[in-house]
């Protein structure tokens, strides 16, 4: 049983990092644009399909396919921000409606363009890594490493670069930031682009571990929203903590109960945290 617990912890942390990748983009978009981008799950899904067609059909190396997907979806995110979300920045209800509309549109387009049936990206790193009694597939380990690298990179950009500081300023007070000479529109576009690129990478990684289907974004957005609510809406470090906590719940609870109970426990954890800290674990005003 102890081996099972250790394996459960490893499984959970590995899953958690995938949740973090999805939630990071969502948190970034919310903190800068002030909207909960429900179509983020479909960006994740479309990103996965770009990787599939680049890698499986186009025979492009997987890492390059990930980069292409990130660029394509990043540009797509910028266009979405420019054409749609900029007009409703900071307005929750119109943004939700717009995002839901986008979700339906993207899912339908995906079914028509890619077919309704599941596809899969062949394993990029076959085999497992053994650490004592614990085993982790190399694909999942790669996803964890990518999650760590991208999260660290995002932290560095926000803390150390001029653009990052501008993002922080806009997230705190867009009007004050504008008065300081920061181009708020440009920062919004950039945030949306980065958020979409992160979602695309998460989608591509999950597509290589699991399967691709037009409805795969539903799982991503559900987890993503749960993570950012737990961690604190708008908080990047909160998204990391929230993702890892929910990942551990998903990895350990099934050992003693079931997968369904893991989902229930996850939501109970969120509710308990919100009762004590309404802004989430690391949320701020």
């Amino acid at each position: 049983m102890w081996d099972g617990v250790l394996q459960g912890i490893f499984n959970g942390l590995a899953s958690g990092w995938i949740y973090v990748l999805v939630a990071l983009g969502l948190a970034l978009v919310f903190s800068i644009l002030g909207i909960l981008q429900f179509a983020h799950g479909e960006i994740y899904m479309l990103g996965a399909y770009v990787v599939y067609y680049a890698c499986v059909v186009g025979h492009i190396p997987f890492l390059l396919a990930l980069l292409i997907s990130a660029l394509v979806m990043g540009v797509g995110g910028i266009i979405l921000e420019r054409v749609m979300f900029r007009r409703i920045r900071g307005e929750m209800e119109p943004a939700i409606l717009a995002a839901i509309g986008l979700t339906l549109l993207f899912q339908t387009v995906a079914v028509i363009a890619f077919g309704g049936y599941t596809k899969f990206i062949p394993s990029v790193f076959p085999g497992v890594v053994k650490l004592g009694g614990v085993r982790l597939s190399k694909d999942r380990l790669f996803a964890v490493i990518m999650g760590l690298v991208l999260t660290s990179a995002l932290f560095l950009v926000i803390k150390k670069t001029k653009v990052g500081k501008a993002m922080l300023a806009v997230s705190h007070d867009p009007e004050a930031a504008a008065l300081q000479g920061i181009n708020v529109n440009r920062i919004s576009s950039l945030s949306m682009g980065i958020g979409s690129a992160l979602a695309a990478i998460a989608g591509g990684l999950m597509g290589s571990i699991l399967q691709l289907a037009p409805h795969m974004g539903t799982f991503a957005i559900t987890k993503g929203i749960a993570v950012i609510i737990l961690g604190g809406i708008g908080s990047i470090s909160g998204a990391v903590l929230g993702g890892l906590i929910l990942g551990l719940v998903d990895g350990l609870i099934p050992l003693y109960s079931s997968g369904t109970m893991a989902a229930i426990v996850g939501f109970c954890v969120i509710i308990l945290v919100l009762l004590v800290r309404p802004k989430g674990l690391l949320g701020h005003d």
Partner: protein
Amino acid sequence: MKKKKLLVKVGVSFFALTLFATICLMGFTDESDAKTLKIGAVWGLTGPGSEIQIIMSQGEELCRDWINAKGGVTVKGEKYQIELITEDVKGTPDGAVTSANKLVHQDKVKFVTGLTVPFLAEAVASVTEPNKIAYWASTFDTMTPKNAYSVSAYTTYVSYKPIIYDYLQKTYPNLKKVAMTEILDPIVQRVAAVGREEIKKRGLTYVGNVQYPFGSQDYYNVLNKVLTYKPEILDINLEWPGGAGALAKQARELGFNGPIMGNSPWDPIFVRDKIGSKEYATDMFFPSFEAASAGADIPPMAKTIIKQWTDKHKTPCIIEVFRGWDPLYTLVQAIEAAQSLDPTDVIKTFEKMKTVDTSQGVSKIGGLKTYGHNHMTLQPCPLTRLNKGQIEFLGWNEIVVP
């Protein structure tokens, strides 16, 4: 002048008569023109499992084309070309009911075919039964005596269990401890329950099971728990092909090296490719076959289907094609045996038939003691094994369903 007026009158009258005669004759058809028989088809073309249901739907269309090319369905000297009206149930019971309602009440079909998932078949039957519409499901494991108008055109999932456990005991006589994974679905649990009876009957040890929601993709946590039971054999029961491949792959990644057995006729090529490595795609067996590995053991009808499919689609013909073919193929045989387009006559005739031709050879009809009526088609059961990435055909086995 008078002559000219007369000529005009005659001309106009002739034209009017010709037009009138033409309109009247449009209501008549040439005796050699075939009539149309509308048959409804329900498949999950989107949603979970759509990857195989799309192929089943295409298999049914192939059957329609083959029957129509041979002249269609003959009833009392009249020939009927089949018009297939296909609806997408979207993988949900609501979708199945909506599709069935549309076919029955809007399209006015008397026969419906399709679906291989019992809870979806039940949803369709909830519409077809009260309207006395004959429903030929691909697989309908959960039929009861109340399903007077429903037929299962392909062997039921529970029927495979004894054959699979026979092979297990023969091939791995020293392995005793069996664990199961099961989707949270009544039919899967019913199949698993039959499996537990087989385990008990054969003196094997049942060490435990883990259930998980339908549509899952990541099985690490499920398998992590199952492997704490230290099984020697893993029975993954029913799953979609993608899920079966993912379960097998993830079980191997987590260190399980024993035999993995399944209960669904998955396409061996798809499962093997989903698993990925030769090292992992081994010691896995399930009731299916694949043309190249089955070779000379393929029944004549299956050879015909394989040739038609590969000529049309230019892709390998997999077992899902046959599962789509058989509902329409067996329905047409029942209609021609009854020499009637009345669903009641057709059903009554079918349940008196002893055998029917199917994609996998001559198949018995049975199920009276188990299901309350003889509405089960019992195709011979193929068995296939993945062995170090190779697909091995293990032969045909007779199904017995009392």
